[in-house]
């Protein structure tokens, strides 16, 4: 059953998720002005699945049930599925100009699906069957799931089991006949509050001493012992100001991150997908990271499309669109954006079937994709700021633009003065110019910069993580042999 966006929002109200913000519990977090834009953003992933003009990307046929499911709940069965995933993410980036948060769940489903299959092959466990039951439940109910990998990590020079505080990595504190009890937290969790469930994975390669940290499971967001502390974003309280809709920049949609705490939470056995088989932590991490690095070749490209469009509008409204350097900057932004897309499509097209039958992206190309994503959005917004001009960060507030306080010699109001002096070309009203410039301010250094800049840098792994994978996958020895072959060196 495919939910609509409105049904999804109502489904969140039924949860008893514990959410804390500014030192207090937020009882009605669905309607909280700081949180609601991120919920509305996820809702778009539901609504577009019902439209014929987007259905081909937004939905897939489940290989488990034969039913139509939202692609965010799909297990990829072909390179075509992998490419459509990236295209879907580009579409959603274009429609929201934001992080739409549902990708982490999809990427974790596919990583856990193939890894559990291989764990069972080696150890005769039943993790894969547990996961099949779980993913069918997710598909049938069209759920949003937070794929949770990142532990706070504490001292990065120490293994999980060697930390001064044992809870800095999620770990098993008790084993019972019917399940396990876990303690710890997951940091930077995108969309966690907007999720029905959480799928936990280990965050790094583990050794034998770290067995209790090699754990993967699924749990509802409102399970006993789970609570979330909302992450602040730049300029976030603008969303709470009255009469500041335009000042927010993107007043429709936004992203969200939180610290999700697991305070001795019981996980029943049928929801456990890894429990001590530490050598498989590496496989799970690499596969999830690979899928998630592929994702950025779609989502950030879609947001980039909107940034380019807004920059072009800013040039129009400034009356500068005919200038050769403006055209060239837009060309450069397009070049960089489409290069990211090339990477997303390439790693998808070069994907392959895993032992479980689902399709995995090409790991080298996915890491190249993300490595480029750590750089290009920064240059794209730098060029956007260049085109927009300094007014982007010096404009008066929306309240000033609408103020009827008389200040002029002839009775002019603040609003009239602002509209007079900040008028641009005849193509737009001053308000329209202001909207575009605030949008660019928001994406460059406001709350949306979290999703477009810093998330591009650190999301799905910081730059060094990709360089390690590129080094591992780069086949330097094979390339040496290529050179030797040309040069007749034995």
């Amino acid at each position, binding site marked *: 059953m495919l939910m609509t966006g409105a049904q999804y929002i109502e489904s969140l109200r039924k949860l008893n998720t514990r959410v804390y913000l500014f030192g207090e519990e937020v009882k009605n977090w669905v309607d909280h002005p700081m949180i609601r834009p991120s919920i509305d953003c996820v809702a778009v992933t539901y609504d577009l699945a019902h439209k*014929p*003009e*987007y*259905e*081909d*990307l*937004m939905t897939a046929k489940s290989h488990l049930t034969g039913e139509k499911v939202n692609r965010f709940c799909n297990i990829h069965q072909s390179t*075509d599925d992998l*490419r*459509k995933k990236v*295209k*879907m993410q*580009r*579409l959603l980036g*274009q429609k929201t100009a934001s992080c739409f948060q549902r990708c982490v769940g999809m990427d974790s489903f596919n990583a856990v699906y193939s890894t559990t299959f291989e764990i069972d092959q080696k150890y005769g466990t039943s993790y894969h069957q547990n996961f099949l039951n779980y993913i069918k439940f997710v598909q049938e109910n069209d759920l949003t799931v937070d794929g949770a990998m990142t532990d706070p990590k504490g001292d990065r020079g120490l293994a999980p089991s060697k930390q001064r505080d044992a809870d800095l990595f999620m770990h098993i504190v008790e084993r019972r006949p019917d399940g396990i009890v876990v303690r710890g937290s997951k940091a930077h969790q995108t969309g966690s509050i907007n999720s029905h469930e959480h799928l936990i994975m280990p965050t790094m390669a583990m050794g034998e001493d770290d067995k209790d940290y090699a754990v993967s499971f699924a749990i509802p967001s409102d399970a006993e012992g789970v609570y979330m502390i909302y992450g602040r974003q730049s300029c976030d309280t603008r969303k709470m100001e009255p009469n500041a809709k335009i000042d927010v920049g993107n007043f429709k949609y936004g992203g969200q991150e939180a610290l999700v705490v697991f305070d001795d939470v019981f996980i029943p056995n049928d929801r456990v997908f890894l429990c001590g088989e530490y050598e498989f932590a590496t496989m799970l991490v690499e596969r999830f990271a690979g899928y998630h690095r592929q994702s950025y070749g779609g989502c950030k490209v*879609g947001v980039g*499309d909107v940034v380019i469009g807004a920059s072009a509008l800013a040039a129009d409204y400034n009356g500068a669109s005919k200038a050769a350097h403006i055209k060239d900057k837009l060309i450069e932004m397009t070049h960089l954006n489409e290069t990211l897309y090339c990477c997303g499509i390439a790693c998808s097209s070069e994907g392959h079937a895993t032992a479980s039958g689902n399709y995995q992206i090409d790991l080298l190309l996915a890491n190249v994709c993300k490595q480029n994503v750590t750089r290009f959005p920064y240059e794209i917004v730098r060029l956007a700021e260049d085109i927009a001009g300094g007014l982007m960060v010096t404009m008066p507030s929306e309240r000033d633009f609408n103020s009827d306080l008389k200040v002029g010699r002839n009775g002019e109001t603040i609003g009239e003065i602002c509209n007079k002096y900040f008028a641009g070309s005849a193509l737009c009203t001053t308000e329209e110019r202001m909207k575009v410039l605030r949008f660019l301010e928001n994406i460059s250094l406001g709350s949306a910069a979290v999703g477009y800049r810093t998330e591009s840098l650190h999301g799905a792994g910081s730059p060094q993580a990709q360089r390690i994978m590129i080094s591992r996958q780069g086949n330097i020895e094979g390339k040496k042999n290529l050179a030797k072959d040309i040069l007749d060196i034995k």
Partner: protein
Amino acid sequence: MKCGVRFCGGCNPRFDRGEAYEKIRTQLKDEIEFDYAKEDDWYDVILVIGGCTNCCASYDHYRTRRGVVKVYNAEDVDKTIQILKDFE
């Protein structure tokens, strides 16, 4: 004649696919019955409307008696209308 319509997913359309469909449907409404393609139905022709030259919409799972017509740029909409007329 019955025509099943399938859109691509619209990730980066170079033209307005909805407008193109509306033009085709309006000009041929007296001759052809249009509907969004469904898996269980039979169609005389499947019309695939792609937003760019990649035209990556999936359509193999639809059943058609006479074939598939694709349009993936604004310039070809009029030609597509003629092709569909000629199917009659």
